[in-house]
């Protein structure tokens, strides 16, 4: 009896990786999933923030995929290592701050390392030639294989017939004739295959699975780096870029203003790390001040926060500013709508 071969599948939570893994299972390969958490993943970590999202609990699609497939899923924290991928991408960025090609090379390389450590024979991905403008092109497929170090142990079941034979095919671990030749941006072949396998309710994220492909998020990240004079970040930085209204009235400070109760609660967790502002005479949002601020700056910040409070039309609003356990109180006139300059909005 032939040895059952083992493949590690990169599982993003999207349809393509779900199908690629299923194609391997159909061929009798033992498959386990691996999912990398960069800190920028759309999956997870927004569960709890906005109150309006709580009514419909958001599932983790990578876990959902693994459960549908009946395979194990290993979730790996790569937040620290990923910084170098994002800050110094050899192949550059896509339309926004997305280093898709470097990201894929990095993840496949990590999967190869995991496969070696855990006795797996090869790596599979849900890549399809032409599916993505940056990383999934005919000319980038060999780049990923080579630069990740996976070489011909990297198999793409959904488009393998359009690519040179890999070792799993050559050695007969998998049957090339039962792999696929998908290409281009159309999703129809994948949807037909999903139907064949009986998959319903699979994830179809509109902007992919990474915040770095999002324009407004990328603008905030670029602003963060510009304001600090260096391209670096911590996990709290990238979490806060997803929350609240961001305003930079002066180069030396930015305000993060909660937009609703859920964000207010979330920002409470950062009170010890930031200068915080809250309106005392009227209901209003909790606001974090990121940067340094003079008393004059604090007064301007208080006027902005007052603008977003229920006292926006009042003559004065009392605002408490807290920093490292010391409170200052300001009584300010809220800015008018047209005094909130468009150039402040990040």
């Amino acid at each position: 009896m032939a040895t059952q071969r083992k493949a590690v599948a990169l599982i993003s939570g999207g349809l393509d990786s779900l199908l690629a893994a299923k194609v391997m299972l159909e061929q009798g390969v033992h498959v386990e999933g691996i999912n990398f958490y960069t800190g920028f993943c759309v999956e997870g970590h927004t569960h709890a923030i906005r109150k309006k999202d709580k009514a419909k609990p958001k599932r983790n699609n990578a876990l959902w995929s693994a459960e549908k497939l009946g395979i194990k899923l290993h979730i790996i924290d790569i937040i620290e290592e990923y910084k170098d991928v994002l800050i110094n991408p050899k192949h550059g960025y896509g339309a926004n701050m997305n280093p898709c090609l470097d990201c894929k090379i990095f993840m496949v390389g990590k999967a190869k390392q995991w496969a070696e450590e855990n006795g797996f024979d090869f790596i599979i991905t849900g890549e399809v030639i032409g599916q993505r403008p940056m990383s999934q092109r005919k000319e980038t497929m060999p780049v990923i294989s080579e630069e990740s170090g996976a070489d011909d142990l990297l198999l793409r079941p959904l488009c393998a017939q359009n690519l040179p034979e890999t070792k799993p095919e050559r050695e007969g671990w998998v049957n090339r004739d039962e792999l696929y030749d998908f290409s281009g941006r159309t999703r129809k072949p994948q949807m037909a295959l999903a139907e064949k396998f009986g998959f319903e309710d699979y994830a179809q994220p509109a902007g992919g699975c990474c915040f770095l492909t999002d324009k407004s998020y990328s603008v905030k990240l670029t602003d963060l780096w510009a304001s600090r004079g260096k391209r670096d970040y911590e996990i709290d930085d990238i979490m806060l870029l997803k929350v609240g209204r961001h305003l930079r009235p002066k180069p030396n400070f930015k305000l993060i203003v909660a937009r609703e109760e859920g964000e207010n609660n979330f920002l409470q967790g950062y009170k010890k790390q930031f200068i915080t502002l809250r309106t005392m005479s009227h209901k209003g949002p909790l606001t974090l001040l990121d940067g340094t601020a003079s008393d004059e700056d604090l007064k301007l910040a208080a006027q902005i926060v007052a603008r977003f409070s229920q006292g926006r039309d009042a003559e004065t609003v009392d605002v408490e500013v807290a920093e490292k356990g010391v409170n200052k109180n300001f009584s300010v006139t809220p800015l008018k709508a047209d005094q909130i300059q468009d150039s402040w909005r990040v």
Partner: protein
Amino acid sequence: MIELDARRLMCPMPVIKTQNIIKTLSTGDKVRVTCTDPGVMQDIPAWCRINGHTVLKTEEIDHEYILIIKVGSD
């Protein structure tokens, strides 16, 4: 009972922390995970189901979410 404090972490970090601690434990061991992200009530049981562990109990106390997990055999 092993205690895991995953408070203030957002999913999937509590899942990753749970996974990493369970790797160091033996079959039958129990771990109690305390979290503040309500997403764990969905994600940790899903992770346990696919990886062969059993969630013995879940509860919410004062906006904290607590799961008691029994480590499976594999």
